[in-house]
């Protein structure tokens, strides 16, 4: 049998190509996830270990994280070792930057010794003496701190003024602080200081009580477990997608083997005729599957490793801040990936093999046992498939009514399983629907596509899985996104507000704001500077009937009842000292009004009142604010800075709501694109499956195609027939998947989102869905190119004598 096994492997090698590609893709996916996870882990260790890079020992609490060392002991220990030690930790202190008060800022040490300075300098210079500080770049950006600024750290007697002399990166999360000062300066707040570890060079001597000394590597490992969970959970999420890809690959491989074995049924029968036992045939066939699986898995592992390291290099190039480094290939992932590929291939070949074993030796003697023209679908199977589908529907309905997530998942799973089982009944019928659309070639194509219901359904199922998940994810994310937009729109209605509590904002300022790059629209908001009882200093009061032009919430926040003043509570760092519902006296010059306070957020330090209220307060309203709607894609930090330059000379302030928008926007798009990209792998594997099924069917139909060509079908006509067949198959699977996906997303919306966010509307992202349907269908068409070319190349005479 070895001869037979090797010979059939050799002969049918080309027919295994698609199966190999499908399995290799899935394995590569798993390995890429492994390489990236390992890279992220290594990067974390590297960053975590940055403060201890030049240390021989790290001293840390014995029972970390449950216990601490006393700061006084650590300080004494560090002082004793002098330059041979660097204590790591921080104090949480109030901080004043410009006019702002930040109630809790992390203040950490920066060493004056080169070897202990783990913070890479971004600009300026390091702090080397008392009265100097370096700020973390992200903190500086968020709080408009720049080099040369004066910061006041601490309060009361402990307050100290420092000048920012440089900006640094803080790559090590546990040691991260917002502002770093020299060690002696930091000791000013020694009673507020928390010191978690000390990096030591040389001998440590007597350890502080409750402390232990270990190597920097051991210390990093210990600390990593805490952060590791994040990386692992991302890894698990990625593995879920890999699981989808593996499942789709399994479907494709099962189909491949089913078709291959059906085509070779006669060979197997002949083998049985000449004396091979059932077991020998089975062994040979399973060995073949194992050989294919091994090759595919190894190829996939190599490709995955290459792709993974390529991705890391690309990430380094595009986003150097992302914590990923090229780490040694993780053996468990590599082995796991290869094992998964091998197991999936062999398992996928199992059920087709059973059919091979049932073949009787006599089949070799009958003239025509090649895959029967139609494999019937038992009524029992159809009835069996209706059950889970119906149960799934019922469960989903129950989930929607009772908001039960578990019910929804069970229902969705059952319904999907039902649809997959119903495939052989459902898919051929759906494929025949547009039968009249493409003329006689289309009719032939539809009949061809539907002739082998089980094969067609399996091919469609692979695509169905990918498309359903993709469209469900797209719709779910669009809905979630719309809900969030609305929610955040209410909290940050104005992207950027320039508010002046002093003089009016001149027309020239408005003009320059409008000409600032990144500004889409800007309106001047009329008002007057008032005195409000309970608030310090002058406070602008404005009325903005035109807010809808720029507001994210359609201007709803600015529609204020007469007799009410709406105040942006978040514009006051420590609260305005007012409570919603309270009555305040608002005085403009001689006039005054009693108004009720309402709370809001997102437009800066100004009170919004109704136009008639404003008219009662002043006869000559002047612009005291400019509200800006940023253009899509505008950089919030730069736009804020540009507007600040306009605001500063006239004593106005800038409220930057765009920053919140932007970070949300970026996170959501990263999430959407990642999910799409990950699911796309499954779709690609499924499309390989379409090409595969078609390619193998073409081999089976050589005689038929020759007959059609003899009867007068042109080469182009034959190619068209096959293209339409692929098109019908992929379009049917895609449309069915889209309907299911949107349906699942809707039940998810009704079950999960609506109970949480009552006003959220279900949002169908038509353009994205259209793009998915179009892309998948066209890719299906692409999948037909090679099989169609191969089919059309055969001359009718050669095809007729083909055996």
């Amino acid at each position, binding site marked *: 049998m070895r001869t037979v096994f090797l010979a059939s492997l050799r002969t049918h090698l080309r027919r295994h190509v698609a199966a190999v590609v499908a399995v290799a893709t899935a394995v590569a996916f798993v390995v890429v996830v492994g390489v990236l996870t390992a890279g992220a882990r290594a990067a974390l260790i590297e960053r975590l270990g940055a403060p201890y890079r030049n240390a021989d020992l790290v001293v840390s609490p014995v029972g970390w994280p449950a216990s601490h060392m006393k700061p006084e002991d650590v300080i004494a220990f560090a002082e004793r070792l002098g330059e041979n030690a660097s204590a790591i930790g921080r104090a949480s202190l109030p901080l004043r930057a410009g006019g702002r008060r930040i109630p809790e800022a992390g203040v950490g040490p920066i060493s004056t010794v080169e070897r202990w300075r783990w913070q890479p300098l971004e600009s300026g210079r390091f702090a080397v003496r008392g009265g100097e500080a370096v700020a973390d770049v992200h903190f500086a950006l968020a709080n408009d701190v720049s080099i040369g600024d004066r910061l006041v750290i601490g309060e009361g007697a402990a307050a100290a003024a420092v000048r920012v002399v440089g900006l640094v990166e803080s790559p090590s999360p546990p040691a991260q602080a917002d502002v770093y000062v020299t060690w002696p300066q930091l000791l000013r707040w020694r009673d507020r200081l928390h010191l978690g570890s000390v990096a030591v060079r040389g001998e440590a001597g007597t350890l502080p009580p409750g402390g232990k000394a270990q190597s920097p590597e051991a210390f990093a490992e210990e600390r990593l477990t805490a952060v590791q969970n994040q990386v692992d959970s991302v890894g698990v999420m990625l593995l879920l997608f890999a699981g989808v890809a593996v499942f789709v690959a399994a479907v494709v491989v099962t189909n491949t083997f089913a078709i291959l074995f059906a085509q070779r049924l006669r060979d197997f029968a002949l083998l049985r005729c000449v004396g091979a036992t059932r077991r020998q045939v089975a062994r040979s066939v399973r060995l073949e599957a194992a050989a294919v699986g091994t090759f595919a898995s190894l190829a996939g592992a190599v490709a995955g490793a290459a792709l993974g390291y390529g991705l890391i290099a690309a990430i380094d190039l595009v986003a150097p801040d992302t914590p990923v480094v090229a780490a040694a290939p993780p053996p468990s992932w590599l082995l796991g990936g290869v094992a998964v590929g091998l197991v999936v291939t062999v398992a996928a070949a199992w059920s087709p093999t059973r059919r091979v074993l049932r073949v009787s030796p006599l089949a070799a003697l009958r003239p025509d046992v090649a895959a029967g023209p139609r494999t019937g679908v038992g009524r029992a199977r159809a009835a069996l498939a209706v059950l889970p589908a119906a149960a799934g529907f019922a469960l989903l309905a129950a989930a929607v009514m009772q908001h039960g997530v578990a019910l929804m998942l069970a229902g969705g799973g059952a319904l999907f399983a039902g649809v997959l089982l119903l495939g052989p009944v459902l898919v051929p019928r759906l494929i025949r629907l547009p039968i009249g659309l493409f003329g006689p070639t289309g009719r032939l194509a539809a009949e061809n596509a539907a002739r082998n219901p089980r094969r067609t359904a399996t091919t469609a199922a692979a695509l169905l899985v990918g498309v359903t998940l993709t469209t469900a994810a797209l719709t779910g994310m669009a809905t979630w996104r719309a809900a969030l937009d609305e929610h955040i729109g209410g909290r940050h209605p104005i992207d950027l507000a320039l508010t002046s509590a002093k003089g009016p904002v001149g027309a020239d300022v408005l003009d320059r704001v409008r000409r600032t790059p990144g500004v889409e629209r800007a309106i001047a908001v009329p008002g007057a500077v008032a005195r409000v009882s309970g608030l310090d200093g002058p406070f602008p009061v404005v009325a903005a009937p035109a807010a809808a032009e720029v507001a994210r919430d359609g201007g709803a926040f600015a529609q204020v009842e007469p007799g009410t003043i709406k105040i942006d509570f978040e514009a006051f760092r420590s609260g305005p000292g007012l409570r919603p519902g309270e009555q305040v006296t608002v005085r403009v010059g001689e006039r005054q009004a009693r108004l009720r306070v309402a709370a809001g957020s997102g437009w800066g330090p100004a009170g919004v009142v109704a136009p008639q209220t404003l008219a009662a307060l002043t006869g000559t309203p002047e612009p005291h604010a400019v509200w800006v709607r940023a253009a899509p894609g505008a950089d919030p930090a730069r736009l804020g800075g540009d507007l600040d330059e306009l605001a500063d000379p006239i004593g106005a302030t800038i409220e930057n709501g765009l920053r919140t928008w932007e970070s949300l926007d970026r996170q959501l798009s990263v999430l959407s694109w990642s999910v799409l990209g990950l699911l796309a792998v499954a779709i690609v594997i499924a499309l390989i499956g379409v090409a595969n099924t078609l390619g193998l069917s073409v081999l089976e139909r050589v005689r038929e195609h020759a*007959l059609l060509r003899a009867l007068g079908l042109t080469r182009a*006509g034959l190619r068209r027939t096959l293209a339409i067949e692929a098109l019908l198959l992929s379009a049917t699977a895609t449309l069915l998947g889209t309907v299911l996906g949107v349906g699942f997303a809707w039940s998810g919306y009704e079950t999960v989102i609506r109970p949480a966010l009552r006003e959220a509307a279900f949002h169908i992202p038509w353009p994205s869905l259209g793009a998915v349907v179009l892309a998948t269908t066209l890719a299906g068409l692409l999948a037909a190119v090679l099989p169609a070319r191969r089919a059309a190349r055969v001359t009718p005479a050669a095809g*007729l004598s083909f055996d």
Partner: protein
Amino acid sequence: MPGDATARPYERGPYRPVPQVDTATAVRRAEQGTVAAAARGLTKTYGLGDVRVPALRGVDLDLPRGRFTAIMGPSGSGKSTLMHCLAGLDRPDGGTVAVAGIELTSLDDDALTIFRREHVGFVFQAFNLLPMLTAAENILLPLELGGQRVDDAARERARMLAEILGVADRLGHRPAELSGGQQQRVAIARALITRPDLLFADEPTGNLDSATSTEVLDHLRRSAHELGQTVVMVTHDRDAAAYADHVVTMRDGRIV
């Protein structure tokens, strides 16, 4: 289309066993003896180098119009290759083939396909019918492939041919539900539906028992004699060849 299509007898209603010889048939019969297809100096070699197998070594042949010709020979004699070249299914390496005044060797693949569609009908030994189409759909397939609208007249003609061939009650069935003889008769009906200049039958009785073979051969002969159809049959079976008007015998790529 060559010849006056409207004058052909198929449109005169169902075939009757004892035909009234009408004028058109008389005209066709008068044309018997003229040539439907001609081959000159045909050569064809398969394979390359050491495994070169010459299948045709210079064949000259005239096929008389309206007659039933059998090309006979043992397997490997080149008879199938000759038929493939005559029918425009394959290209000879050398020589010329003319059918209905058309020089085949000068046609490209698409033109050759359209030539087959319009001028030639085929009956093969097996795999004659597309398994996913019904008998009626199979019969009408050449018209559909030609892009013609399948109108009521065409359907009526298909039904009529099915009736002549005795498969009218099987039209709604798929090939798998038909016996071998029924499949071959459906194939003959399909070959006749376009009123071809030439009907090729390649071992049409190879898979049939003797009673069914007789029936199929009888249909082929009557197509020639009573309907004026030019029929060429390739066979290795002497008994089958005996039904033909002429027998051309081939051996080792030559007519003997």
